[in-house]
């Protein structure tokens, strides 16, 4: 793809909008003039707690499956929505079936980060967000390193949204960080004095500058209605609002996947939030931008293939990624299915990971941000074995 030579500024200048009525133009107030480094949109959702891949994309075609999941039974006979004759989808994701049929929803099964054996949420998430082969090898997150190797990045290019920490975006490249709930209204004098007072403390100074910037143009969401929408919808709506403008990347979390007990109820609620989030993004982005959008949901690990004694599942290894968006070639369950025979399991208890989430993510970055493979292998996901291109993002 040729470098972008076309920016909103030139468009506006050519169409004669710049000039006498610049300040008054309603078209100009909410947008800034920056040209983004690429045109595609990427949304990364971290599913914190360890999503049970086997209950979400149910391998009902595997002969061992039913025996492992007596009360958490899936498959079309138990309400699962058939995907391809082998896998079925958890019924709580039914609202996404039209996307599946349109090729705008897909999955990668039996994948994991390089994290093995200890099954800690915190380390698992740290590794997922660091993108490294082992723990504590890098302080920055992989999505921040994507920005580091991309010219023309500005703070608005990538947004971490919501109140939780998003380590995958932390690092030296500038990113924006905001929650749709935040508010800051200071008198001009107080604003000036606060800036002066925090000038010498880099942590406070950076946070304040960004808070003031964002408060200035954080127009209230157009979502009307008498009742405030749930937090995950507000986050998705805010992400869509930013991605319609100059932002190209949004990252946020959906919690609630640590289903040790009575998984059937807990998982239904979390999947409901995921499904809502994807549909809110689709509606908020509009058709044209949705076509350029890839949504990737990833989790720190999968869960045990067997149910535990309390109607749930414990921390495991191999998991799944959820893919959505108008830019993807979906309608497929990707990945190499390892089978659920005892001998095929990891440690005789977990789904065997047959692929690396970093490799799939790497190919997505390669396609959507034109990031070259050397940068992916050496910088963003150090040492990753990319393997063959799974062709997730449509050319």
């Amino acid at each position, binding site marked *: 793809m040729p470098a972008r030579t076309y920016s909103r500024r030139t468009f506006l200048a050519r169409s004669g909008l710049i000039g006498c009525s610049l300040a008054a133009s309603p078209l100009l107030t909410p947008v800034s003039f920056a040209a983004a480094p690429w045109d595609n949109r990427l949304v990364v959702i971290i599913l914190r707690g360890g999503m049970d891949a086997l209950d979400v994309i149910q391998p009902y075609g595997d002969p061992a499956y039913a025996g492992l999941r007596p009360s958490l039974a899936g498959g079309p006979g138990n309400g699962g929505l058939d995907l391809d004759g082998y896998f079925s989808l958890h019924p709580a994701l039914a609202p996404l079936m039209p996307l599946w049929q349109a090729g705008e929803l897909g999955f990668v099964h039996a994948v994991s980060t390089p994290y093995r054996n200890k099954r800690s949420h915190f380390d698992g998430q740290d590794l997922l967000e660091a993108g490294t082969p082992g723990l504590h090898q890098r302080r920055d997150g992989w999505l921040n390193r994507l920005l580091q190797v991309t010219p023309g990045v500005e703070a608005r290019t990538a947004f971490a949204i919501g109140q939780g920490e998003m380590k995958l975006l932390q690092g030296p490249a500038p990113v924006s960080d905001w929650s749709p709930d935040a508010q800051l209204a200071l008198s001009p004098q107080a604003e000036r004095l606060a800036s002066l007072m925090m000038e010498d403390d880099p*942590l406070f100074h950076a946070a304040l500058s*960004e808070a003031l910037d964002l408060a200035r143009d954080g127009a209230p969401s157009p979502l009307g209605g008498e009742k405030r929408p749930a937090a995950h919808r507000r986050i998705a709506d805010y992400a869509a609002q930013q991605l319609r403008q100059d932002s190209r990347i949004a990252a946020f979390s959906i919690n609630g996947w640590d289903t040790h007990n009575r998984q059937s109820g807990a998982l239904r609620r979390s999947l409901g939030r995921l499904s809502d989030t994807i549909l809110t993004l689709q509606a908020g982005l509009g058709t044209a931008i949705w076509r350029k959008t890839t949504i990737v949901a990833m989790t720190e690990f999968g869960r045990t293939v067997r149910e535990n004694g309390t109607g749930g599942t414990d921390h495991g290894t191999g998991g799944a990624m959820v893919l959505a968006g108008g830019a993807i070639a979906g309608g497929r369950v990707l990945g190499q299915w390892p089978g659920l025979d005892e001998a095929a399991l990891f440690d005789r208890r977990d789904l065997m990971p047959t692929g690396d989430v970093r490799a799939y993510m790497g190919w997505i970055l390669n396609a959507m941000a034109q990031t070259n493979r050397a940068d992916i292998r050496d910088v963003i996901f150090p040492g990753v074995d990319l393997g063959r291109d799974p062709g997730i993002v449509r050319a």
Partner: protein
Amino acid sequence: MSTAMRFDGELAEIRFGCGLSPNHALATGPEDVLSQLAAPDLAAQAWPIPDFDGAMAEARAYISLRQEQREAVGTEAFEARNVALTEQRARLRDLRADWFRSRLLRCATSAQPFRERLTLFWADHFTAQGKVPALRYAASPYVESSIRPNVSGLFEDLLIAAVTGPLMLHYLDQHRSTGPNSPRAKRVSDRRGQDIGLNENLAREVLELHTLGVDGPYTQQDVRELAELFTGLGYSLKDGFTFRPGWAEPGAETVLGQSYGGDSAQLEPILNALRDLARHPATAQHISRKLAVHFVSDAPDRHLVAYMAARYQETGGDLLAVYAAMLDHPEAWQPQLANVKPPFSYLASACRALAIPPAALGGLSRGQINRFFLRPMQAMGQRWEFAGGPDGWAEADAAWITPQALAERIRWSMDVPARLLRTLPDPQQAADQALGARQDARLRFVVSAAETEREALGLILTSPAFQRR
């Protein structure tokens, strides 16, 4: 050792206490700070919170009212029972607001602020939360019973109190975990054809978070064996903690190469395993480092940590000795304030610095407690008593000073203290109360240049010098 790195009374209040207060004299030396722990717990007497048994009584009342309401569905009695249930629910919410207020007042007024800081630290280290409506309010009573009385004894006693606390057993699913070969598992399998079994959650967190640390010398096999050893730990709403031999996995279990238990199911081998974990060198290292990170700096000097860990090992985990080592080390007294106060400590230290009268806090309704404190804390990233997971709140300063959290700290500082004070203090006096000697020329200028007293007060409280410790 640089000459500046020595005991400083203001620094003692800021770094190891709840901040400066115009109502209390400064600590005079490390022994003075430690002596707070030997004295009777005055703040708990002044601002009481019931113990966990008291909270259980409220939970039982809630559950029986809910049961009665359900049984009355479709009958004439329903309306009255529904009202009774709703009232009990409101009572639980009121209690939670009362307990929050007590904890805030303790930090804001105590003459033994080091005890408050330690209680907060260990309550976070042993995070436990109610996951059902009846226990959703139980975290403060859990801290009152299991944590607070044990903050200056042996770590093993604190560990045992926390891990066998009913709220912890509930939070980390231990009360449901059953030995796969236990009498109970066999009975359920025979009667209902169901397989019930182990849940590893508590065992994993004890190794990873509470004792050895995630880099500690344990394997998945140790997690499994400890989970098998833990079977039998349980609680009931009626009796609190119970040991249930019928749930326990038969036989001995090997954890870190050491065998525990054997023929008959007993509690003692479980406690022995916890004691051994508490005395393990990896635990000494993990706990010492975590204390140093929390109290001194996100990146503590390794000599400080080594010094504390050595005292820990010499004394078999005597926490008082470990604190003494920390306060004794020059690195603990570096004058630069390195850490950021988390939201609760931040708000409490503001109340303390401004000497907001206890009566003003005592008179707040539940709605006002929510509006003035709990909701702002959530917007600052700290949902009171509901950290994101069993690892508790972040220690990293950057986790708290995000644009949205800082925006809320500024908003709160400009708004809430002024509502709680009948008359606003003179700005320079407020700066002296809040910051002591930690005011530079720029801060003095800011205070003098603010357009209103309210803004001056807000700016003092949002100065990095006040937000750090």
